[in-house]
């Protein structure tokens, strides 16, 4: 790593934790704003991408908390436009993935993001049981989790007629291998800070 955090003194600041867990140095950002200009969703975010980086740079606990409870970190589509254009090569999508797991761990998830997380969790449940994504199960599970029961009732029958929805899941043979990967990965994820 050619950069280090020679300024940081706060070992529990987000700036420090981002570096420890992702190897990314938020200090490298000099606020040119290219990420915010190119982000397809910066207008829908509560803090633009470059603002998120600035808030982390300042190492102020209140701002760290605002970052973790922001809607921005959940709106990121990982389209990778920001990191592609960043003159300092700050890997913002990678940082945001880390901020998401911190946000969940510290129970700071923005209420507006609950549908997004419900979708991700249902997705993972689906592949944990069958090894591959079962789209019908995903939609049903998502509706059940979020109570959006009427969503997409008009498009689903059409998809079925077009042969695009399989009524039955594709189940892989070695499902125990997948279950093991989930169990071990969850354990590793829970203990990630101690490990790094």
């Amino acid at each position, binding site marked *: 790593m050619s950069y280090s955090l020679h300024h940081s003194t706060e070992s529990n600041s987000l700036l420090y934790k981002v570096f420890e867990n992702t190897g990314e140095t938020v200090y490298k950002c000099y606020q040119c704003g290219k990420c915010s200009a190119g982000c397809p969703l910066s207008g829908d975010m509560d803090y633009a991408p470059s603002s998120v980086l600035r808030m982390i740079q300042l190492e102020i606990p209140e701002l760290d908390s605002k970052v973790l409870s922001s809607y921005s970190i959940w709106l990121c589509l990982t389209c990778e436009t920001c990191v592609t254009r960043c003159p300092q090569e700050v890997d913002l999508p990678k940082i945001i993935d880390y901020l998401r797991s911190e946000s969940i761990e510290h129970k700071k998830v923005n209420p507006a993001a609950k*549908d997004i*997380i419900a979708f991700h969790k249902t997705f*993972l449940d689906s592949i944990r049981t069958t090894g591959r994504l079962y*789209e019908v199960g995903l939609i049903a599970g998502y509706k059940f989790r979020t109570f959006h029961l009427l969503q997409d009732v008009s498009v689903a029958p059409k998809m079925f007629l077009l042969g695009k929805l399989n009524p039955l899941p594709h189940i892989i*043979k070695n499902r125990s291998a997948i279950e*093991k990967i989930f169990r071990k990965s969850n354990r590793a*994820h829970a203990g*990630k800070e101690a490990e790094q």
Partner: protein
Amino acid sequence: MITIGYFPGCSLLGTAREYDESLRAIAPKIGIELVEIPDWNCCGATAAHSLNHTLATALPARILALAEKENLEEILVPCAACYNRLVMAQHELMSNEPLCKKVSDIIELDVKGTARPINILEALMKTSSNGLAQNISKPFNYTVACYYGCLLVRPPKVLQFDRAEDPQIMDEVMKKIGAVPIDWAYKTECCGAGFSVSKTDIVSKLSGKIIKDAVTRGAETIIVACPMCHSNLDMRRKDINQYNDSRYIIPVMYITQAIGLALGIDKKKLGLHRHIIPVTLPVKEKTTGKTQPALAVSERSASGGKTEVE
């Protein structure tokens, strides 16, 4: 004939069935033998990398390891999103030894990095140089918008594939089959990807801009190479038209379907009947005659805002 490993990914078994069908239909004709990776699993997609980084590396690592076991040197990953997950996982595993060891322990298989994931454009490039053009029986002489989306070209530092801001490879392949690609602004803009279900309004907004630009610049069809781009631009069209107060009816095709048509393969074999927006392209004479774009009325019709597509 080149033998390439094949990782279809979950979408190609369901919502993107026609991508799998058309790819399998054109493969023998363009000199590719596909060897499906046995017992492959889901790559984890956005869900895994949003919630658990270790899982997001371990799931693709199992796929890579299974391909290595079969001595496959390359894995064709037609889904751009799966492709991105596989390449990113391999990149991380090969550049971080402790992580590689940890993940090998988790999946209980070794990953050496000998099987390289390639995307559909790379596979087509390989074959199009030795003979795609001479096998064309029905030139696909339409004006097309080549839509790459995010993950075929980004992040360039890892993928090292084509130009990140204005890629050309799909345009080049389309030219070889007789199409005229347009120069447009939304080649690599995001369609809204994984928010199709959880934030449909965002997909409607982003995909609406893409379709609008393609239509305004005269495209007759949008060519894609990603199941998520396809489902957002095609399956979500009703939501897009409602949100944007528009009546876009431009069809969206997989690149493999366009090539299949040019190779003279039957429409049904290419799954062209499986689209929500019917693929009705005007019949043209052999030379590229200008026809009226059969598509897209961008304003709400006088009939009082009916957004249904006939």
